[in-house]
């Protein structure tokens, strides 16, 4: 926990402070705080119901915190709607991809650039997406539902990039995908990050997380229980027990 105090407030791109979030009467997050620094690749780890997706959805404005605040580039976004948050520069690649199945690959990508700021950069971002995932350019006129699982995930990430984000939230991109496909997705994520886009990702695969992330937060039953660099986390006995089984 003492790793929290090392981070200074002013250099955070995103600062989540002490939020409580409810699904109806069920409290999903308890006093959660988290900071994302510009340019880093930050992971959220935790069991299925730990609240990782809830946290991403709250950052995206699909849910609103009952207590606490969320600041993006120093601006309080806790009460904003999702479309306003996308425009500020946070895009989410949701769990299960949630593509528009009956629309073409290209139309899915174009919809990613719906917010006003992204529209003017549409062609430029489209070229970038095709550079990361050339297969999408080959398949641009196909319906999204006809793509393979891996290609659909590429499209979901590409669609998120079309929003011209500063911060990208990725929810369980590895779900149901073969390791070889994942290697390609994470190679693309590293390229994306090298272009200066900050990444916050949720990942079930702890080994993969500790390989890819600069830092990670561990959520348990809606609370942050640990955070730190992969090396620091691996030293923690709790983590080893819970996530590595040793």
């Amino acid at each position, binding site marked *: 926990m003492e790793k929290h105090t090392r981070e200074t407030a002013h250099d955070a791109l995103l600062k989540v402070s002490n939020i409580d979030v409810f699904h109806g009467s069920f409290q999903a997050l308890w006093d959660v705080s988290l900071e994302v620094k510009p340019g880093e690749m930050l992971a959220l780890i935790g069991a299925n119901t730990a609240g990782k997706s809830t946290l991403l959805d709250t950052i*995206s404005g699909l849910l609103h915190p009952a207590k606490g605040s969320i600041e993006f580039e120093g601006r309080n976004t806790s009460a904003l709607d*999702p*479309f306003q948050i996308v*425009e500020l520069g946070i*895009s989410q690649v949701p769990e299960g991809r949630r593509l*528009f199945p009956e*629309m073409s690959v290209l139309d899915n990508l*174009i*919809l990613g650039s719906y917010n006003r700021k992204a529209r003017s950069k549409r062609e430029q971002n489209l070229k970038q997406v095709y550079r990361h995932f050339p297969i999408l350019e080959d398949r641009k006129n196909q319906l999204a539902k006809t793509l393979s699982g891996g290609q659909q995930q590429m499209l979901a990430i590409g669609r998120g990039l079309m929003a011209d984000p500063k911060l990208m939230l990725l929810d369980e991109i590895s779900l149901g995908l073969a390791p070889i496909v994942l290697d390609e997705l994470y190679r693309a994520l590293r390229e994306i990050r090298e272009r200066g886009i900050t990444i916050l990702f949720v990942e079930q695969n702890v080994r993969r997380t500790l390989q890819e992330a600069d830092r990670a937060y561990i959520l348990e039953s809606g609370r942050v229980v640990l955070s730190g660099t992969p090396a620091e986390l691996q030293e923690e006995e709790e983590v080893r027990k819970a996530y590595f089984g040793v």
Partner: protein
Amino acid sequence: MTDLLDLAAPLLRGILLGGLYVLIALGLSLVFGVMKLINVAHGDLVILGTYFAFFLMSGELLGHKYSVIANLGIDPILSLVIVIPLLFAIGYAIQKFLMSRALGISMEAPLLIAFGISLIIQNTAQKLWTPLSRGLTPTYALECFTVGVLRIPLIYLLDFIAALVVMLALREFLKRTYLGKAINAASQDKRAASLMGINNNRVYAFAFGIAMAIAAIAGVFLGLTFPFNPTSGVSFLIIAFGVIIVGGLGSMLGTFIGGMILGLAQTFGGYFLGATAQMLVLYVIVLVVLAVRPQGIFGR
């Protein structure tokens, strides 16, 4: 030979009349497809458009005849320049101020609101324009054109052309524009749409507005084709449901074919069973489709 030629008249009339039914059904289909909202006021909103055109042509309102407007005598088709934006605004407002809140409450709330709107329109129209049957009757509404030996009312042809134009325009709009794609996206996955930066409430309001703009066109051509009164909306709502049921929801081609089938059912029903039975045949066809293929001919 004469028999076959006799059949050609109801065939052609049925197909052309189907165009009018397509026009009426398109707005209902759009609102259901996007918002999953059954707008039982759709028929009345169509008739409201008809009455707006009627007022702009005749100047009649609350038992008075406003001679300024009567002298202008704006042609019904020309009046669309005014009636389309007017109904668009009404539709936009209905969604923005009434439905958007109701959609969050329950499935029944928007249905009840639509039912209320229906009653309000019917009763207001009775006050403003009396319960009497009216018609939009510029000279061309009474003319016929001939195909070989067949004489077909000119307005039937105009109905069909209007349906084609509106359908193609709507299709291109949904396919090519950002707003159209957003409407499409919000109808497929509301949550994903909002993560794309789409303001669903705004998109819904536009979708309702566009549906009502199409209803305005439907209303004007309806008034040119059939006589109407303040409660006519109900029977045209049923026809619009029939078109969607027969054609299948969410398919524009289905809506088009559905309109043709109901148009043909009506004209052939009239031909074989007499004028009193023509609507009966139409309803029976809807029932048969519901029983045999409930998702509609082109439905998934």
